[in-house]
Structures are given as C-alpha cells and as structure tokens.
C-alpha cells in the first residue's frame, strides 16, 4: 500500500493571489467605467417664444436663404427652399437629408444675399421623437447656426404635399 507522505517537506501556506488580483482589478475597472458613463448626455434646444404680443419675437427670413424641413411618417422628410408652395418639396429619408442641407447652404452662400442660412424644422404629427432628435443632431454636426423649430404653423399646402407623398 502506498503511504501518505506526511513526514516530508512541509508546504508553505502561501496562496497564489494573482487570479484574485486580476478579478479585483476587473471589478475596479468595471465600476470606474460604469459610474462615469451612466450620466446621460443632453441636447440643448430652444424654441421660439409663444408670446405673439412682443414684436421682437417675429423673425424675418429671406426666401433664398431659408430651407424648410418637414418631418413626416416612416422616417421621411420633405424639404423645400424659400416660400411654401412655390416648388414641390423633395422627399428624402432623415439620414440622407444632410447632403441636401450642405448643397443648399452652398447655393445660398454663393447667391450673395446678406444674412445667415436658416433651417426651419417642422415636426409634424407623423414624426417620432427620434426623427426630431436626429434632425437637430444633424444640424449640429453640419454647424448650421440658425435653426428654428416650428411645430405650430404647418401650412395647408405643406400638409397637402406631404399627404400626396403618403408621409403625413
């Protein structure tokens, strides 16, 4: 029979701590990362004041420098330049409208008319909150300085054009 080697060298009671240290640092890293990331980001927006009695609340816009973007159903937008009804709105998806903004801004800047390029965002009843945030984000990325949100004055011809395209 094999005998248990009890009288031999006594093994030291040392434990290998390496895996434990690994685990500890993993947890530490996890806590550091989660605590700093968990604070959500926010988007700063301003809407025009509703008080119509104040004359300074009315803003004059130049037709050649104003782009109106209507947010509609199915993540689609309808945009046009200048005054409503003069040209048929172009229908595009929310993600693709950035190129149109860049193009229109170039044309507007080249026209020589003084004033800033203005984007008017009109979210309609068909759009989602996501569409709205995406649109405002796109304008921020493209550094469009003058942007207005208008969800009260959706004109009849705008509604008509959107209905024809099936996005309202």
């Amino acid at each position: 029979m094999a005998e248990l080697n009890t009288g031999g060298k006594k093994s030291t009671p040392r434990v290998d701590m390496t895996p434990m240290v690994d685990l500890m640092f993993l947890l530490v890293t996890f806590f550091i990362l989660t605590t700093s990331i968990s604070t959500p980001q926010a988007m700063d927006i301003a809407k025009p004041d509703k008080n119509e009695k104040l004359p300074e609340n009315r803003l004059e816009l130049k037709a050649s420098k104003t782009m109106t973007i209507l947010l509609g159903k199915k993540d689609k937008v309808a945009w046009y330049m200048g005054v409503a009804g003069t040209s048929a709105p172009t229908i595009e998806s929310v993600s693709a409208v950035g190129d149109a903004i860049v193009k229109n801004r170039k044309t507007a800047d080249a026209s020589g008319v003084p004033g800033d390029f203005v984007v008017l965002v009109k979210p309609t009843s068909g759009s989602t909150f996501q569409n709205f945030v995406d649109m405002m984000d796109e304008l921020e990325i493209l550094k469009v300085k003058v942007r207005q949100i208008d969800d009260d004055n959706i004109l009849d011809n705008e509604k008509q054009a959107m209905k024809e395209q099936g996005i309202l």
Partner: protein
Amino acid sequence: MPRIKVKRTSTVTDMTAMCDVASLLLTFFILTATARQPEPLAVSTPSSTYEFKVPAENNAILTIGQGKVFFEVAGIKVRARTLELMGEQYGVKFTPDEIKRFSVISTFGVPFASLKGFIAMSGTDRMKPGVQRGIPTDSTDNQLNSWVLQARTATKEVNNQDMRVSIKGDAKEEYPVVKKIIDVLQKQSVNKFLLVTNAEAKKN
C-alpha cells in the same frame, strides 16, 4: 579572478499587498457609486452626438413614454419643498414623515389625488404595473404645469438658481405627445430644454 556568482531570485512576487489595494479601491468605488434608481417608466432615449452632461442639480426630468409623462426633480431638499408648495396649491396637508418619504422618490407618475396613497406604499408596490399611470396634463386639470411651476419655485428658494427642464423621451414616441408637454412648458415661458439622449460616436 573569482567568478561572480549570479544569485537567482524567484519570479514569484507576493500579491497580497496588491490584492489589498485592489479590494480597497473596489470598496471605495462601490460605496461612492450612486445606486441606479429603478425607473417606473422605462424609455430608450434616442442617440445624438451632443456632449453635454445632464445636470445633477437644479434640474427636472420629464420622462415621456407610452403617451404618459412622469416627473422628477433633482435634490432631496428641493423635492420636499416642491411637495409643500404643491400641498399649499391644492389644499392638501402633508405630514413631515410623508414629505420625508416623498423626497427620496425619484421619478413618479401619479395624479395628485392619489399621491398620499402612493407615498404610503412600499418601494416594490410603487413599481407594480398599473400603479403609476402618469401625471395628468389635460387643459382642465394640468397638474404637470403645477409640478413644474412649483419645482421651479422650490429650486429658486432652496438653491437660488434657475431650474432647467430636461425631456427624456422615448425614441419611438410620436412627436405630438412630446409637443403637448413642450406646449405646457412654453405656457410658463420655459423656452429652453434639454433633450436627454444617448451618447453616439461622432461621424467624420
């Protein structure tokens, strides 16, 4: 010349000290981290590239999802004062114990009439489905308007700073629901908002 004997040292280092430090750090982080409050209304916020942190103080968060709106104001003292002011407005008296209990509730969505019962509930009962049905925003009984107004007053009184309003909307929420809430705020001449979003990597 005598040969120099190179002494071989063992590569095994004592990890105990390192382990101590790591666990100390771990304990520190666990204790300092603020526990995430359970949310009665889970929303998935849209993402944006904005880099602006939601302020931890002087802030009210309106959570919008499933057509309902929930309210939260930051700061325990501000919450207590807000409830007192709301009680004065609606002619309801709250006991100091109720105010204390209310001040630790973060997000809630119950009509003011059932608020007393809601405060008396236990934390788990509050989270049960059907208990919190949102704050009424009808034009006849616009309680959200009162909450925001009293929270602004309370923030001004307690912190002497202006309160910001953050809107935490669900990405799938239809715009008219959000518009309705924004209109309530604009009636009070609150024209600047923060939209709570998820961080997204910047393009280009």
